[in-house]
């Protein structure tokens, strides 16, 4: 009998700590499948951030460094400058990248760091229990926006790909969604592109993945997938925002 669905070699098989219905599992699998397909497991070095994905290194069977909150692009810079021939990627959430690490991600792109960035946007701080993130939608209820995010006092959701696409040093910037199989397929192609770019020395690539947090959104996994499609995609349009160097 020929198996049609196996665990990627680049995943360890450790049972994850993620909540049921969370899309981190899908995102991990996609990244691992691409590492396998591109045959780069032996030279991949991941950088885990602070948030739910802080333990990503338990699940990926590649060398890993765990970075301080928001600093993964700086840590990745240090690794990549020492080993330009290795494939270095960060895996960061929205609090980590779009809030405390906003400076590091913008300047990694501006320096044209030849790294790959996987950005999980689930519009909330998951690990700390559901606080408002820079990507929280207007009106969205979180533990620190109990009346719903009000743009008058709490501002608007931050769109990282649109922001980074304006940086000349960025090569490839895309936003995908993980809410259904068709979109997961597209996300996989974007992630593959982002890794291939690095292998070809093209510079900074970032893929945002619209993701769910059923636990902190107080929704069933199915409702959470629907919520991504209905509420997040209108605010966070999908597609490639940039492919190529310079302006």
């Amino acid at each position, binding site marked *: 009998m020929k198996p049609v669905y196996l665990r990627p070699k680049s995943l360890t098989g450790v049972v994850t700590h993620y909540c049921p219905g969370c899309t981190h599992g899908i995102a991990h699998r996609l990244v691992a499948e691409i590492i396998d397909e591109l045959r780069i497991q032996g*030279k991949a070095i991941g950088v885990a951030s602070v948030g739910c994905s802080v*333990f990503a*290194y338990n699940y990926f069977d590649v*060398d890993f460094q765990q970075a301080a909150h928001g600093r993964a692009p700086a840590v990745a*810079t*240090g690794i990549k400058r*020492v*080993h330009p021939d290795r494939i270095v990627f960060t895996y960061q959430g929205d609090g980590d990248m779009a809030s405390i690490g906003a*400076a590091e991600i913008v300047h990694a792109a501006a320096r044209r760091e030849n790294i790959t960035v996987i950005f999980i946007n689930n519009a909330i701080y998951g690990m700390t229990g559901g606080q408002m993130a820079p990507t929280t939608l207007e009106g969205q209820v979180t533990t620190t926006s109990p009346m719903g995010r009000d743009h008058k006092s709490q501002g608007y959701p931050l769109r990282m790909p649109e922001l980074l696409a304006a940086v000349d040093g960025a090569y490839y910037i895309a936003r995908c969604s993980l809410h259904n199989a068709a979109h997961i397929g597209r996300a996989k192609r974007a992630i593959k592109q982002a890794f291939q770019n690095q292998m070809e020395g093209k510079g900074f690539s970032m893929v945002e993945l619209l993701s769910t947090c059923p636990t902190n959104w107080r929704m069933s996994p199915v409702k959470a997938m629907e919520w991504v499609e209905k509420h997040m995609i209108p605010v966070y349009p999908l597609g490639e925002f940039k492919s190529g160097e310079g302006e």
Partner: protein
Amino acid sequence: MSEPILMKGNEAIAEAAIRAGCRFFFGYPITPQNEIPEYMSKRLPEAGGVFVQAESEVASINMVYGAAGAGARVMTSSSSPGISLMMEGISYIAGAELPCVIVNISRGGPGLGGIQPSQSDYFQATKGGGHGDYKLIVYGPSSVQEACDLMIKAFDVADKYRNPVMILGDGMIGQMMEPVVFRDQPGEAAPDKKPWATTGNEGRKSNLITSIYLDPEVLDAHNWKLYQKYKRIEENEVMYESYRADDAEWLLVAYGTVARICISVMEKMREEGFRVGLIRPITLWPFPKTAFDEVADRAKGFLCVEMSTGQMVEDVRLAVEGRAPVYFYGRTGGAVPLPRNIEKRMHQVIAGRTPVVTECLDKNQGGGGR
């Protein structure tokens, strides 16, 4: 052994780092250490290395974390406010047990303070600075030559213990020119000599660099493992110099450039018949307690002189353990203690006219004491 070259301290420190095999530098501009990144930006590419000007000191120290975890000899440099920004990263580096060298050409604080020499970062360097139970190995050079020699040692000690090392120089060390001889030129420590480094898992199990241990038992064990390492460092790495301490009744205690000022005070008072000696800690952590054990039983008193309102003096008191009174004289903010004022304070000490705990006895001369 090469011929002496006249070099500015900051540039000599940078050259010494390259000769120690450092090939990666990540930093951010701040006075009075700018000659270090400037020199590195020119020399490192020539030496086959990499210089990156980061967007902040926060990013610099995290680039150091990444490069150190990737197995490189790596350093950064900054000055006091920038070092404060690095404290989070230094705590992570200590927790993840990564070797690197951090140079602090310190200036007066608190806050933005000034840009003149100061020793007011002693507590931050030796007592933590960042969060958690950790120790930096801290060297306080008193000359450009010693700063160069300690740079080379710093990289070796960092690799030996997998621990961050700080060179705590004041602005004077960075800015003055002195003759320097580059004594050692050890080869670069290759990443393949660091089997724990993240270099890609080809042909081995995956490596991990981390400082997170959520299980209390595991974190407890990690902290006690670090503690045992710090004990070994205390046993093996203490450095100090004692000057004319054998028969001294009165001992000056100072580190860095202030120690050189104190030596001239000591020599003058010796000529006048006062039995004055000096203890100069070179490692500020581990603090050279043994230097005090050698003299404390017969000493009549110690006078600690610093460019601060009194920081190392606390370690001096702990080392002396009440066996003799410990006095203090200090200037801050870039004001440098003058030999005549140190001498005057020492005469007050000898005459018993300086209570051990008082504040600012000689305000009109500048400088406080206790």
